């Protein structure tokens, strides 16, 4: 066996975990725990940014995962990526909550991207590579586009309010956001192709 690389078993994909968690047994609990470990911080982070209230964000996180466990919300593998699906669920829940309370706050800047993401040994190489490339792409965006993206991303602000806060016309904001998002979408699509 000398010279043979020891092959680590590949970590289970999100889709595998979802399938395992849908069977309510001990394995399901473990799979569900893994899903939470992998994506809990993702959901909580988005909710905190949208809602600005850690307590509400905690509630929302718990609520989403409880519903996932109870299969009140279901992910259908093959239709979209799990992270994208989870993101849209979280975003929509946050927006619904904001609609109820109709709160607004000052614009939060995007966090520092120098802390590289995707170093998690659990995550697969596609995710890590994609994260690195997205980080780099955001860092390389022109200042104006980054500001526009920052004002519109996960803030719970309407784009009109974001444009007013940045003091730029609405059309300018839209074009800047679209340019930034197109660039990132291109990178994500490319990474998926590499996968």
């Amino acid at each position, binding site marked *: 066996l000398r010279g043979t690389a020891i092959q680590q078993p590949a970590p289970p994909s999100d889709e595998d975990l979802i399938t395992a968690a849908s069977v*309510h047994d*001990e394995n399901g609990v473990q799979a569900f*725990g893994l899903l*939470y470990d992998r994506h*809990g*911080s*993702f959901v*909580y*982070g*988005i909710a*905190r940014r*949208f809602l600005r209230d*850690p307590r*509400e*964000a*905690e509630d929302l*996180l*718990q609520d989403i995962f*409880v519903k996932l*466990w109870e299969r009140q919300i279901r992910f259908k593998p093959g239709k*979209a*990526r799990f*992270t*994208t699906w989870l*993101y849209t669920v979280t*975003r929509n829940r946050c927006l619904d909550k904001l*609609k109820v309370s*109709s709160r*607004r706050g000052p614009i939060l800047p995007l*966090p520092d*991207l120098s802390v590289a*993401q995707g170093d998690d040994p659990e995550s697969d190489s596609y995710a890590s590579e*994609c*994260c690195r490339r*997205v*980080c780099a792409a*955001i860092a390389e965006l022109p200042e104006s586009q980054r500001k526009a*993206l920052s004002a*519109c*991303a*996960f*803030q719970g*602000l*309407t*784009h*009109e309010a*974001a*444009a*007013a806060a940045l*003091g730029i016309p*609405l059309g300018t904001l*839209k074009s800047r*956001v*679209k340019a930034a*998002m197109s660039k*990132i*979408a291109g*990178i*994500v699509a490319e990474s*998926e192709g590499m996968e």
Partner: protein
Amino acid sequence: MMSHVRVQELIPLYALGSLGDEQRRSVELHVESGCEACRGELEAFENAAAEVASVTCRTVPPSSVENRLKARVRRDLAARSKLSERRRGEEHRRYELLVPLYALGSLSRSVRAEFEAHLASGCRRCSAMLAEDENTTAALASATAHQPPRAVTENLKARIQRDAREAETLVPRAGTPRGPMTSNSPLVGREQEMRLLRARLAELSKGEGAMVSLEAEAGLGKSRLIQEALSEYGAQGLEISMGRCVAVEGKVSYEPFVDVLKAWAGVADASDARRHKASFDAMVTELVGEDAAADVFPFVARMLGWDQGRAGTSPASGIEGVALERRIHEAVRTLFAAKAARHPLVVTLEDLHWADQSTIRLLEALLPLVETHPVLIVASFRPGNDSTYGRIVAFADRAFRLRHHRIELRPLLRRQTVQLARELLGHEELPEQVVRLVDRKGEGNPFFIEEIARTLVQSGAVVEEAGRLRVNERLASIANYGSVGELVMSRVSRLTPQARRVLETASVMGRQVYRRVLEAMLGEGADVDEVVRELQAERFLRPMSTRQTPVLKVRRLSAESGFVFEHALTQETVLASLAGADRRRLHRICAEAVESVYKHRLQDFYGLLAYQYTGARCLEKANEYLCKAGEAAAASAASAEALYFFREGYRTYKILHGSSGDKETEARLERDIALALLNVGNLSECIEHFNAAIRLYGEPVPRSAWSMRLKFLRDLPAVLAGLYLGSFGTDKSSCSERDNALFELMYNRCRAQNIADDSRRTFDTVAAIRHVGHLDPSSVENSTGILAAAGAFFAFSGISFGPSRRFLAIAEKLSRQGGRSDRFLYRTMAFVVRFFEGDWSSRHDIAEEDFEYGLRHGFLWDADVYLGMNCERNIHQGEYEKAELQIEACGELCERWGYDFARSNQLGTRAHLLVAQRRLEEAREAAIRWHEVRNEDQIHLLALSLLAKIECLDHNLGAAADALARAEHIRSHARGLHFPFYSGAYLTSRLLFRLQELEESHRSQRTVPVRLVRRVRRDCRRALASARKIARDRTETFRLAARLYWLLGSRTRAFRLWEQALDVGGQLGEKAELARCYRDLWRSLASVKTNPVTFRGRDASAWLERAIDAFVQLGAERELEEIDKFKVEVRAA
């Protein structure tokens, strides 16, 4: 529907969550309509947004969330496995029953085949039983004519002995350790918390109130701690009341407080509603005296749902929504204060995490009592309920930090767990296996530890031998239990069948079990006393009155007699263990029992009945009680609960009838939901429900902008024709109920649209006014107010003052025949029209007592509008002290009456007052706060316009330009801001800005650019056109335009405008603006050095003298300083 190109523009923003609701819906509709290009783009952008979120947003959540989630998942898993085990058990029991029949050969062929298949699957138990029974059967067969053979006797003996052995394990034997079932378990590890509670009780005895929030997960001993603290503290002349919220979905509004009052009134369970009323009346009169009782009792009655109160002479009749809620709060606060004035008062409220919103808001209103009265509120709750108790904790921390004490109970440490187990088992030395088991399975939770100790004793896994505890092989089976729920169920399974049946039956009712309902559920012949004794001995139930101790003057909040589950977890576990069909059957029995036991006062149980019938899947009945519960909740101002009931009612109605339901019933349900949403302030959603109800009545609601405009073009001429041909306000015998209902919907929709939907407000208001023409005023509630409001609408929208006057004349006629409310509504709207028109004399003011009457009857929006406009008038007339009083009144409207929108009025008028006094620094801060206080575009536009004015007056032209640009952006993007009330403020500020620009050019002796001249002229035209529609802006606009035209060299036009400014200013009594006119005239006339010019026969120095006099009278020091600066400029020129 939105165009493809526009949707494509919005998709990236949609993916990032940066669109408003309407645009979100439009994008979704477009994509769902099948546009593949947009779907593909949306997917790509959502992937991108998810990646951006993944790299920028990740934040590690607190471990408590993970713990809660894991506990929940574990609980769920345990319940599922229990359920499937139970199903397996039920299936198996069926086969066990078949054993003797199979042995006797009396099964049908198919069942026989089924049973044989079961045996073939390897069921050892059934095989053994079968072997046994076949022996017995064979023996019986041979013994029909002879002595019973020895085999039979032995077999029967063996069975009896086996049964006896099994039974033996169920009862404590000699040698069984002293278990927790014989006495109260000790309180361990809570010394510090006890000290804190005792200290608060000691302070209360000295007259100091406080609030204690006790937070802990289920089973950690919240109730126990409160009980121990109160009983240890002993009698100190305290009045102690205890209450609890229950975990039943169909909640009763103000639940624990209703029970407090019932207990104070001493009403008995069996008495009827009439006796209840008499007892309450007596209690209220005794506490607050006869005079005050007349003002308190009606609101207590509304709170209890006795008086639906829409009409009548009671002070509570006709008051709805937030105003009613505030009056209820005030009444209950008065009662609590009176009670505390007699004895220091302790109110313990348990399980507040299950509280309904009405309870939470009432508790919030009662909290200030802890600062002024000897009241100690001890509230316990589980964590993670921000919308209920979390809200109270945050409020108390903010408002009563020094009197709010928080106690968080944590799981016991290992040594404390062992100590508790020692106490429970009555031995200092415990076997190591027991210690390990209690430590591992108990999780530091006293309830879990007690359950384990109880199971150890009852199952005989721990026995006492020679003064020491010994464990045996049964311990292993207990260690295998996965959760405490399973332990509880193992204890339940050891109960006698009767006790188990009673426990399961009781669990359906919730944690509190009404004795009479339980008896009715069990039917005749059930010996409840006997069984309940067993359940009490086994520590499953306790009587509701067990907490009464001889040393304390304690009154339970609930006056109903009955039992309480020892722990909420026990009730939850037993309920969860019931199979679906059993559970449904028990819910139905419970509902029927409640209906028969409390048939004389069913209104107290509508929520419970709705919950039980929903659980029983009797949807007809559930729907009936849901609607009744909703009506009762709405009548007692518990809007959040009303909303819940109406929504559930509509849902059940749709399940029952699908699309073939009665349209009018559906419309009524939509209306009820919409009104509840309106009352809780969810305006956008309520408009959708109003629209749905209007459509259900067959009235079209235009969806697109074009159809809306087309309808408007039909409605407006019809309104004007009706008005001038006299169809409004006349009696109409043909007016149907449908017309009235439809109008009520349209009227309330307009109320919501006033704040939440600028784009449709005008169109829908005109449609509603058109509908008034079809109505008979005597059959419509508030018809005077509606017609007067129609008049105000024509003035407010700037359409014309002619229709306004006509509508007001009709409303005035009706108000003379109507009541005091009608007169209040008429006078408010008449004031609005005069304010816009320019008749600012004090004869239109509303007398103080009439205004108070309007407030007390819930006309908060009207009161707020009146206060705001009256205050603006006073500011313009230089009556600053009066204006201050009105600003305070706005604050009171917000704080005392709970009308949050008045906060914006308060901040706005404050900012205006400061600007009028030229206290610019303070005014700037106030304007910024005004801008931030709410999220409506109208408020933002007004605040930014004022901010621009402040910056101009402070000569910060850059900042002024910025504020104007932001205001312009709002004006161009938001709809419905063309009304003169909003646009006038902006246009006047822009005029001031242009003047400053022009004066700057003159000062620097630069040539005025042609472009600026064009802009100035255009802005002047627009501002003047707007000012003709609103008197507030007239004098200032005329004055500014006059000065501008003077600077542009149009002297004739300038003089004409000054003439108008002086005339209008004089009519309106605008002292400050008149003084500024004099000042501007002086500055302008003095600038002409050759051929001095006069105006109205006065030269420049005469106008200066008048300006100085006027400013001195107003005490306007800053303006006087400015005159000194201008003097230097004039001399230099």
